[in-house]
């Protein structure tokens, strides 16, 4: 009788539980740190511009007290967490005054996630094909072109090439300059721009992993058997080389809701891209808290799911820690 599967499952369950607990601790520390940092901001930042001019000290204090900003930070923290348990994310203070944050997110996330999802697909398909092309024609023109592209995308600050792409490509192909929900042509450039860096990333790593695999014995054996280079690349090398990449897929998928600050500003996309930065600059504590909590949770969850997925697709990896 074979119990190994059951034993392994049990150990894996324990491992997952411990990993989850540690992730929650990390998340809590990140959240509390940001929460406390925000309480060091000067009180003046909480008022809308006209309020500073027109109202007296007492009204302003009452305004702050109403928002609960004068309580002890730990009281505020407790209030936020207990509200969170009831599904109440609070309301935005300065960026979108008095709008519930849940409504805000429900409005903004679909736009960003829609563009992000398509750009992720473009990134994976184009990036992996590009990486394979670079290995297929290694040290020849295809490789040089691919390397040049990767070099430009990674070395030139993204703002610069995104700006020129918007100006020149939209003129050249006669595409709209800004995003519009109702005009599908205006989606092309933002999706393309969002995928540029992930194309470079996937191409770089697929190439590197495939080149590493090329020297393995099983690859030499496949050649000895008389298989063509194309077949070996596609059927033997690629399948092994793509495994380490899968660990990053969950993170990529979860991060589509984060959006890109530069691209959403350039194309005037009403998404989540610049929300965090704007909220921090304008001291919208409630909004910052929710966003930081959300992004940190997504990134920690992404890494966690990535490890699980890797253990699932790669039989060589066991999640149980060896003693």
């Amino acid at each position, binding site marked *: 009788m074979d119990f190994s599967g059951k034993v392994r499952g049990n150990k894996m369950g324990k491992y997952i539980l411990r990993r989850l607990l540690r992730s929650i601790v990390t998340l809590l*520390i990140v959240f509390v740190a940001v929460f406390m940092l925000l309480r060091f901001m000067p009180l003046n930042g909480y008022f809308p511009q006209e309020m500073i001019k027109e109202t007296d000290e007492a009204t302003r204090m009452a305004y702050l007290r109403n928002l609960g900003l004068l309580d002890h930070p730990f009281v505020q923290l407790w209030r936020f967490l207990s509200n969170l348990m009831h599904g109440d994310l609070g309301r935005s203070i300065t960026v979108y005054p008095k709008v519930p944050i849940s409504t805000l997110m429900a409005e903004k996330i679909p736009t960003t996630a829609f563009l992000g999802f398509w750009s992720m697909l473009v990134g994976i398909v184009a990036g992996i094909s590009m990486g394979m092309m670079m290995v297929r024609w290694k040290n020849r023109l295809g490789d040089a072109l691919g390397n040049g592209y990767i*070099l430009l995308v990674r070395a030139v600050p993204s703002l*610069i090439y995104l*700006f020129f792409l918007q100006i020149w490509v939209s003129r050249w192909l006669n595409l709209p300059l800004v995003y519009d929900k109702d005009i599908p042509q205006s989606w092309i450039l933002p999706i393309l721009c969002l995928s540029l860096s992930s194309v470079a990333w996937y191409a770089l790593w697929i190439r590197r992993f495939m080149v590493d695999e090329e020297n393995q014995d099983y690859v030499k054996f496949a050649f000895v058997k008389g298989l063509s280079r194309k077949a070996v690349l596609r059927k033997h090398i690629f399948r092994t080389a793509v495994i380490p990449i899968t660990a990053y897929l969950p993170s990529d998928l979860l991060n589509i809701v984060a959006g890109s600050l530069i691209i959403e*500003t350039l194309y005037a996309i009403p998404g989540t891209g610049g929300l965090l*930065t704007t909220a921090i600059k304008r001291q919208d504590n409630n909004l910052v808290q929710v966003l*930081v909590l959300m*992004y940190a949770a997504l990134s*920690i969850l992404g890494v966690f799911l990535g490890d699980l997925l890797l253990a699932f697709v790669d039989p060589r990896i066991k999640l149980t820690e060896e003693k």
Partner: protein
Amino acid sequence: MQNTLNRIEQMHDSSLFTAAVFDQAESERIGVSNYSYWRSTFRTFFKSKLVIALVALMAAILLMSFLYPLFSKVDPTKVSTRSRNWNLRPSWDHLFGTDTLGRDIFARAWYGCRNSFLLAFCIALSDVGIGMIAGAIWGYNRKLDPIMIELYNIMTNIPSTVYLVLLAYIMNTSYLTLFISMASRGWIVEARFFRNRILSIRDSEYNIASRCLGTPMFRIATRNIIPQIISLIIMEAALCIPYSIGSEVFLGFVGVGMPVDAITLGNMVNQGRASFTLHPYQMLLPTAVLCLITVAFYIIGNRFADASDPRNHL
């Protein structure tokens, strides 16, 4: 049979052969090749003409950006009150033209290079320096591992804008704020990188062999580990420069970067962007300089990494 013996007899002619003298020193000589890690690294590195050209170009740009402010009499902050000095196209008087306030863009580009370089060097120094020390301790101390990984997760998850804005409130936007906010997070990323490399170097087969042969720890550290780490340090420091210039551009775009009157490449690009449609040269020329620098350092860093890998040595 007899024939053969006779022939051997003939061959054994003492005039043809002399017995060698036994030499103690010669018999104990060990065959050592004159392989030198650094010589091979630099020979491989400078074999490429592209690398030679880029290193020369960067040396020239570096030299110029530090000498120009010393010897030039053009004031990069001098605003012209006459509108005929505004937005001049590039000419012999103003090689890169003038901006919307009549300031000479050529002079500003060199001052910007100098300031951006200084900022980038400081960030590279602190990131790689602190990162390497922290990474070495992290790699050698197993008990620290869970704590440091936790710290890494926490630090990379707190958006840097949070403390950038907070710092800006406490001490106004300046080079120092930008430096602190970028350096406070960069070191742990470098530390993780060095930790992984030190772990793999420490447990690599030649080091285990060295330890088995009884090589003292000091010799292992100085001959086996540090040379590898030094090449990593040079590579990481070179790659830090495009990274820090890129962050400077990004932070300027967000509006939490340098004060507007600071002359840096990032600020010049962001200011040129505003007038791009009317006067494209105001952005194109500083941007070209910036891209040249980041791309060159990126290539140099990567080529150096390749050259420092002993597998690529001849």
